[in-house]
């Protein structure tokens, strides 16, 4: 019952608010009225919702309290007084910014307050007044909250400055309204236990106050002083009345809750502080940012992100695989897979062998082959093989999740639709300055680039497109793409050729250093030569730098990818030959073992004696293709590190040194002329990072140590590159902002992740593991380890459960369900998009309507007008004095408009002037003139811009 009546009340409040609004803020647009109505309606809902979190006790109390709101007559008066006071306060605050509007609102407030006071008896006790205010304020409060959040959502975009104040004003009004309505409604109900009820109300007030204070105060564009004052007031208030609660179960609970929230908020803040303190390299990146703008910094931020991700991967791999094996597994030399074969032992410690990751390196925890296939290790019965597989899969799972989550977050932050090219000029104007730039040279470059971009876009706008050039440009672009495709194909073939050759070499022993490392060298060289080549070719295309960067990235990406996959295919060939080889070696190994035992028993002449085990170094081994793959990846990674560091050292540092010091004795200016200093190559570096990560993902399963190497690499390159960029590079000539390219990087990363997932999963699922090395030796397939665990370690019913789950009868429906879900989500998102479009249209329409209304208040929007007429108390507000209409002749003449030859100038101009004059928003009085035609809208070409270059309209 109480709830229902409350709802009814609420409706009334909503309407009254509207009425109030139309009284006090006559000129306010109807739209706002609507919003407020919605707020009122929302209040009802908010009521229902607001109750949920409160405990049962609270709930009861509340209900009680609602029923007897009667005794609030006298408090109501105080309330009003207070409201008035606050209104006045508000007034003063608001006068800071927009005097005229504010004054009106304030006046209305005061008037309201005054009126209410007249009708009620006087009460001088201020303290009581405060209390009273709380009592009735409760309901209004809820509304306020609702209203606030609504307002936030509703016009978060639209109106910022006015909003805060408007909200406040509304709140005040609403409070009063709510009070008076509740008063009138509850006059009939009886009075009882006013104290507790008042307190309850106070509690609500506090909650509201606190919420408002914490959530919103920093969002207000006010002066610190004012915010500080408000905050202090609010806090004092809360503290004061929080102290007053002290009896009753519910109250205690409530106080406890409040305290906990306080503590929780404080904890959150501290935690946030702690977290930001933990983010490393803030200052380094900031320094780079201020020198080179945000695009270069975006690379370092990406690097840092990558480092964080790899640190987690490193934690998993080392914590769950490497360290258990080292601590609890068999030591080195105990079994064949952990021992260097006798044939290699002489050279196993040579530097060159170690640098190739052979010798001792090959038989160490860094690689797959070292791990034993014991089901459990140590006293803890740690299931190492299972953990190995899980970590391998988990690495991919975690990376995938992280990348996708980051992408989603970035997309979220990116704000509206960036594709919208409606605002090219305005964006250039308002958002092109990068406030992070703190370096004079960069600033100069930025000035220059902004100027050129202004000039370019003006020229574009003027000539639309250079017709005589378009064919040439198209031809050049096609040519460029052709050249790049050629070089991509060439590099792919080259790698294939080299890999084939290296397989040939593998059978021979007399190899020079070059022949041994041919593949790595060629791949690194290609990575070194091709990107600049592409860049040179891209000059032909003449794209905007941001677009050019993306093309460049895409091309280098294709290059790297092609190389990587050629490399992979070659590797697979090798693996397959090794697998064939393995069978015969396995037989040989078994035969040798038998022979050994036979020999032993023959020599000893004692078939009963158990022979000592064969020396692990002498056992014949299989080729262990997993370790071979791991070594390839590690070698590739290491050579990549070397090449990129050497490039920086030679390409940037040496160049900078030469340019700097030879400049004193050279015949032309080296700094300004040909070599000059290097620019930081964002695209190359980002792609290098992405591909390096791809290699890590692919290789980590076969070489757990690779993750550790990578962490070291990222850590060192953070410092090294930061130093290099600050010491040797100059800012880009055309500084441009990174904008959303972060998500572009992430997209590349995701693609690489997916592509590197494929081969690894393929090998895990199809290839048989080596028979004598690695944690899965002896199994048919690597994933058999899972089956084994299910069979042996889990209770029997789990096994049957899994066998059911693996049944095609279940899997196919599951896949079907997923497809359906995808379809469903897809169509839902489409529907959302449609409704988005619809809303946009509506906004446009509303805007048009508004314009029309301004032009002529009488003719448009009949429905709204009718509504206004129906509202009560319309007569109470004196009609706003009709402002004298300004005839268009008195307008300051527009600056000599720039007409283009060949456009029908005159007539349109005149009409436009009329329209503009009547669209003066302040001229509220009815305009007798029919609305002028709106002139050609945002038409293309010549029309726009004419007649608008004039001073501000009279206010």
């Amino acid at each position, binding site marked *: 019952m109480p709830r229902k009546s409350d709802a009814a009340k609420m409706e009334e409040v909503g309407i009254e608010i509207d009425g109030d609004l139309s009284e006090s803020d006559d000129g306010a647009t109807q739209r706002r009225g609507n919003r407020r109505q919605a707020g009122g309606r929302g209040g009802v809902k908010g009521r229902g919702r607001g109750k949920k979190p409160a405990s049962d006790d609270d709930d009861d109390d509340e209900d009680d309290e609602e029923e007897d709101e009667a005794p609030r007559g006298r408090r109501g008066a105080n309330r009003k007084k207070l409201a008035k006071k606050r209104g006045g306060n508000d007034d003063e605050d608001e006068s800071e910014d927009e005097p005229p509007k504010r004054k009106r609102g304030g006046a209305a407030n005061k008037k309201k307050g005054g009126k209410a006071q007249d009708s009620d008896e006087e009460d001088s006790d201020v303290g009581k007044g405060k209390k009273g205010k709380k009592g009735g304020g409760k309901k209004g409060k809820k509304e306020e909250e609702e209203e606030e959040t609504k307002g936030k959502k509703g016009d978060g975009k639209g109106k910022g400055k006015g909003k805060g104040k408007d909200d406040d004003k509304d709140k005040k009004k609403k409070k009063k309204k709510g009070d008076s309505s509740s008063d009138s409604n509850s006059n009939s109900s009886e009075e009882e236990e006013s104290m507790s009820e008042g307190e309850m109300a106070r509690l609500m007030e506090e909650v509201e106050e606190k919420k408002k204070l914490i959530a919103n105060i*920093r969002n207000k564009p006010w002066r610190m002083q004012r915010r500080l004052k408000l905050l*202090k007031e609010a806090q004092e208030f809360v503290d004061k009345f929080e102290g007053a609660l002290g009896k009753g179960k519910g109250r205690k609970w409530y106080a406890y809750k409040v305290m906990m929230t306080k503590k929780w908020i404080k904890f959150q803040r501290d935690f946030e502080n702690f977290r930001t303190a933990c983010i490393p390299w803030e200052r380094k990146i900031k320094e780079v940012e201020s020198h080179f703008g945000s695009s270069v910094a975006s690379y370092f931020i990406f690097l840092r992100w990558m480092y964080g991700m790899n640190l987690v991967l490193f934690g998993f791999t080392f914590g769950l695989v490497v360290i258990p094996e080292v601590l609890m597994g068999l030591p080195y030399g105990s079994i064949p897979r952990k021992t260097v074969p006798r044939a290699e032992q002489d050279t196993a410690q040579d530097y060159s062998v170690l640098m190739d990751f052979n010798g001792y390196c090959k038989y160490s925890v860094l690689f797959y082959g070292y791990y034993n296939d014991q089901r459990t290790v140590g006293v803890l019965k740690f299931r190492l093989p299972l953990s190995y597989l899980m970590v391998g899969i988990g690495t991919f799972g975690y990376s995938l999740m992280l990348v996708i989550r980051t992408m989603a977050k970035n997309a979220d932050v990116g704000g509206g639709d960036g594709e919208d090219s409606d605002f090219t000029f305005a964006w250039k104007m*308002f*958002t092109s300055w990068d*406030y*992070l730039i703190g370096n004079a040279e960069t600033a100069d470059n930025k000035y220059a680039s902004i100027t050129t971009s202004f000039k370019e876009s003006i020229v574009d706008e003027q000539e639309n497109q250079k017709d005589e050039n378009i064919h040439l440009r198209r031809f050049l672009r096609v040519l460029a793409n052709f050249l790049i495709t050629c070089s991509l194909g060439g590099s792919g073939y080259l790698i294939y050729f080299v890999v084939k050759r290296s397989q040939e070499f593998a059978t021979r022993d007399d190899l020079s250093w070059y022949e041994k490392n041919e593949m790595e060298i060629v791949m690194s060289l290609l990575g070194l030569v091709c990107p600049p080549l592409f860049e040179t070719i891209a000059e032909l295309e003449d794209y905007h730098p941001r677009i050019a960067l993306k093309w460049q990235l895409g091309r280098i990406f294709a290059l790297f990818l092609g190389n990587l996959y050629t490399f992979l295919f070659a590797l697979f060939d090798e693996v397959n030959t090794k697998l064939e080889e393995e069978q015969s070696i396995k037989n040989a190994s078994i035969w040798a073992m038998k022979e050994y035992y036979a020999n032993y028993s023959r020599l000893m002449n004692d078939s009963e004696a158990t022979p000592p085990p064969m020396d692990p170094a002498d056992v014949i081994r299989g080729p262990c293709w997993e370790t071979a793959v791991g070594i390839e990846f590690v070698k590739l990674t290491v050579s990549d590190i070397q090449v990129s560091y050497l490039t920086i050292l030679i390409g940037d540092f040496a160049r900078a040194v030469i340019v700097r010091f030879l400049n004193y004795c050279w015949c032309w200016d080296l700094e300004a002329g040909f070599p000059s200093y290097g620019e930081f190559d964002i695209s190359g570096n980002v792609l290098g990072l992405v591909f390096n990560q791809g290699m890590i993902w692919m290789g980590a399963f076969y070489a757990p140590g690779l993750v550790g190497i990578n962490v070291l690499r990222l850590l060192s390159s953070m410092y090294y590159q930061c130093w290099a960029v600050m010491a040797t590079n100059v800012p880009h000539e055309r500084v441009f902002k990174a904008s959303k390219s972060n998500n572009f990087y992430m997209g590349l990363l995701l693609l690489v992740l997916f592509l590197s997932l494929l081969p690894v999963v393929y090998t895990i699922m199809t290839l048989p593991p080596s028979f004598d090395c690695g944690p899965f030796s002896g199994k048919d397939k690597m994933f058999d380890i899972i089956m084994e665990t299910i069979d042996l370690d889990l209770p029997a019913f789990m096994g049957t459960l899994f066998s059911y789950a693996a049944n095609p009868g279940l899997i196919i429906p599951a896949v079907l369900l997923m497809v359906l879900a995808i379809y469903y989500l897809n169509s839902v998102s489409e529907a959302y998009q449609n409704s988005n479009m619809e809303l946009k249209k509506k906004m446009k329409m509303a805007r048009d309507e508004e314009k029309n209304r301004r032009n002529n208040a009488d003719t448009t929007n009949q429905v709204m007008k009718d509504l206004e007429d129906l509202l009560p108390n319309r007569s109470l507000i004196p009609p706003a004095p009709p402002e004298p209409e300004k005839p268009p002749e008195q307008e300051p003449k527009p600056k000599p408009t720039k007409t283009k030859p060949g456009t029908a100038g005159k007539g349109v101009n005149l009409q436009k002037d009329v329209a503009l004059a009547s669209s003066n928003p302040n001229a509220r009085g009815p305009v007798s003139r029919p609305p002028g035609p709106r002139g050609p809208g945002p038409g293309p070409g010549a029309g726009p811009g004419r007649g608008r*270059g004039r*001073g501000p309209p009279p206010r």
Partner: protein
Amino acid sequence: MGTTASQLSKESLSEYQELTFLTKQEILLAHKRFTELLEKHEKEQIDARVPIGRIITLPELKSNPFKERICQVFSTSEQKDGSLTFEDFLDLLSAFSDSATLEIKSHYAFRIFDFDDDGTLDCADLEKLVNCLTGETNDAKLSSTEMKQLISNILEESDIDKDGTVNLSEFQHVISRSPDFVSSFKIVL
């Protein structure tokens, strides 16, 4: 940091955290940097003001074309001389911080671009803005026809109610769709 930090009481520190988008470390750093700008004898005063001339020597603001405007906008000084108290300074940093909302940022951006403080961006404001963005050197300046074309284009795009000026809500409408406003409207100490 220890000595300077003692000047900020714990209370006001937590209040500042409540009121700004800054974290504790940032506030402490801001305080340190601010006191460095103060004269010796001013260091004890709570509401000491740093004149605009010294504020804009901060490396973070030094090459910003809007440095004077920024100081003017955030200054609470009665003489309109653009001097900043510590609280004004915090206000500034908060508005330019990483976590400030688009609304706050666009509000202050509007105030910064509104050179004559009349609440709208009119042609004169836009012209000044363009001049700020293209730098002081003469060869970079746009010609007057280019300027006119540019301004008319901007008004064409963003002046929704066609009154010849860009007001705050129109400005925010434009800004809110820009992909990189929030990321570039940033100053970090």
